[in-house]
């Protein structure tokens, strides 16, 4: 009985600790907003340049009513998700091809490394010239940031699968195709999920870069436009919304990953 009392105490303690962390996080956020608001109102910071939380809230409402904010959000979301899914398909596809043909992989490796280390924002102007200022270009721009790293990470993961696991498939009479579908792919799902978590942020970056230079719609366009006409509340509001979108997308992928680990 004494042990279970101690156990109870321990659990309570852990729970309190957890609540305290949550509380402090929230507190820090509110403190930040309050300080921002107060400094803006008392003139400690120039509210024309730094805006303020209340101004941002007002701007969000007026943007929604007058400028079709949700259309911009929708466009950016659509482009991000499209490039994200295309990176998934092409990334896994290319990594599988490289795994199937190790000779080809060795030939391609230096090119992948170069393409991956290239600052992708430099590609966006080129893409606009090649493909025109349209949605496709922006989706390709989103893909360009994530695709090469994904291929390299996935291919490395695929080739690090325990050789004995592949041998097992061959001893059961399987072929390379069986090794791929019974071992390599199912065994790489945790890796694929973690690559996806990185990719969603990267695709968002690529899409915003694309929208900066070649769009009439989307949050990236809104940001560039606002900066050009010096509408700071618009600019900051768009960035805040972008922040929220990034958090939500990451959170959703986290849920997917947790669901998968729970299922096993």
């Amino acid at each position, binding site marked *: 009985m004494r042990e279970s009392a101690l156990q109870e105490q321990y659990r309570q303690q852990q729970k309190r600790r957890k609540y305290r962390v949550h509380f402090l996080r929230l507190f820090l956020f509110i403190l930040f907003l309050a300080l921002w608001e107060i400094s803006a109102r008392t003139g400690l910071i120039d509210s024309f340049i730094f805006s303020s939380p209340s101004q941002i809230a007002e701007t969000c409402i007026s943007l929604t009513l007058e400028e079709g904010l949700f259309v911009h959000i929708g466009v950016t979301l659509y482009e991000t998700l499209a490039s994200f899914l295309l990176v998934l398909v092409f990334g896994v596809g290319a990594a599988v091809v490289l795994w199937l043909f190790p000779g080809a992989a060795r030939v391609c490796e230096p090119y992948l490394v170069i393409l991956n280390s290239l600052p992708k924002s430099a590609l966006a102007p080129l893409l606009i010239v090649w493909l025109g200022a349209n949605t496709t270009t922006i989706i390709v721009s989103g893909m360009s940031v994530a695709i090469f790293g994904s291929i390299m990470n996935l291919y490395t993961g695929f080739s690090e699968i325990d050789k*004995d*696991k592949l041998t097992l498939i061959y*001893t059961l*009479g*399987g072929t390379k195709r*069986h090794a791929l579908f*019974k071992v390599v792919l199912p*065994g790489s*799902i945790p890796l694929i999920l973690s690559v996806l978590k990185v990719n969603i942020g990267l695709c968002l970056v690529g899409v915003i870069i694309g929208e900066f230079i070649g769009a009439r719609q989307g949050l990236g366009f809104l940001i560039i436009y606002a900066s050009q006409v010096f509408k700071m509340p618009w600019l900051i509001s768009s960035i805040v919304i972008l922040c929220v979108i990034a958090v939500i997308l990451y959170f959703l992928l986290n849920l997917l990953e947790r669901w998968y680990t729970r299922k096993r």
Partner: protein
Amino acid sequence: MNQPLLELQNLSLSYHTMEGEVAALSDISFSVREGEFAAVVGPSGCGKSTILNLISGLLPIEKGEIFFRGEKLSKDSPLNIGYMLQKDHLFEWRTVYKNIILGLEIRRQMTPENLARADALIDQYGLSSFRDARPSQLSGGMRQRAALIRTMVLDPDLMLLDEPFSALDYQTRLSVADDIGTILRSAGKTAILVTHDISEAVSMADRVIVLSSRPARIRTIIPISLSLGNTPRTPMTSRNAPDFKTYFNLIWKELHADA
């Protein structure tokens, strides 16, 4: 009908690497009769796994020949072989049952009869309550059983066991070896066990093939016939046989003859 099930004739093999040629096998010849349990012992790295890989066709034959029921082995007529490796390699993303039928799945042999045999083996070897469990929920011994059933459902003509117990701790290893040895014997399977544990070889095998260090040559082949009286032979009872020690010492001397 005195034809051996499997016959290796003058097998030699070298591995080729940039650092040079590594001679692994040198003139290996032996045969295994139907229903026999043979053990191959030798110093580590001498080429034991290489022999099994040649028999199973994982490695192409370089020099020499292998006959199965008198027919020469070739690429187009691979043997129906059950292979047990050091680790069980049960896939964590499959249930125990799905792991067991992996071979049937790969060979497209998921017939009702085969699935029924899988079920029967699962029941017979006490895994029914773990059917839908994940491999990580099984003990080390249970995992090796599941790995054994995975090969047994394919009804192999020959079982190759490559140090299947060496990843287990000593206690578990004794009981798992006893377990698997008994199962294989009662199923009448022909088996070749590779090990560097002499007592494991003596306790399980009808014949022990002793190899030299690399490149492996056959040093001697020792038939094991333990005086057990009326007790049926299992790995456990073999260990208690009075002449167990004699065989152990004999093999130990052979292994350390040139050291």
